[in-house]
């Protein structure tokens, strides 16, 4: 298993949060555009 602290790994942290904002924002945008195109 693991001993001691994991150093760094910040790229994963950044990637995860960036992906979250990208996906949530992207979905929000897609909802907005679909709404607009129907109206």
């Amino acid at each position, binding site marked *: 298993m693991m001993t001691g*602290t994991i150093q760094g*790994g910040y790229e*994963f942290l950044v990637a995860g*949060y960036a*992906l*979250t904002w990208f*996906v949530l924002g992207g*979905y929000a945008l897609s909802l907005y555009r679909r709404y607009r195109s129907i109206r």
Partner: protein
Amino acid sequence: MQNSKSKIQSFIVLMAVAFFLFAQYWGLFKSPPDQLMGHVQKLMYVHVPCAWNAFIAFFVVFISSFIYLIRKNPFWDRLAASAAEVGVVLTGLTLILGSIWGRPTWGVWWTWDARLTTTAILFFLYVGYLTMRSFVGDKDRRARLAAPLGVIIFLNVPIVYMSVRWWRTLHQVQSSPSTVDPNMVLSLRLNAFAILFVLILFIYHRYQIALLKDKQEEAL
């Protein structure tokens, strides 16, 4: 009046976004790093809330499908479809975040952990639900076919979880993430609620799209 309604809607959206950003900020900068995992542990503040809220979304699909079977009111069918779509988005995100979290902490991109595996199965189940819906053109038929499906697939969720858990204990591989340090509970809850508000708004707006589409179809 239209104008004031959309003003209120925009305000609510803005509030939800602000709260979300606040919760994310809190999780990233104000909560302590984990003893073992360091700052990478903070991925939990996006991964777990997404998982919880996806599950809530699927529960909504279940209840709405069930009520539709009884009431036959198209409102419930639209709600089920909307919740399913948002749920699938969140589940997909959960899975990828789980993978991103797993790599630095356990050294692997994927682990057959009971919860992660169940989430993957959920993903398949509800993508299937949406796919089936997309193949039926007539909205009445679609609703009448989707509703029993929406009920049946949710019934499988606890069964899947238990059977996968037993399966994993037979093989005794990696254990799941340890229980949460009380210092982190606040950040977790903040983010969970933030994403809950996002979930509700997503479902609401997706519902509006479904409603407009149905109205258009009727007009034709």
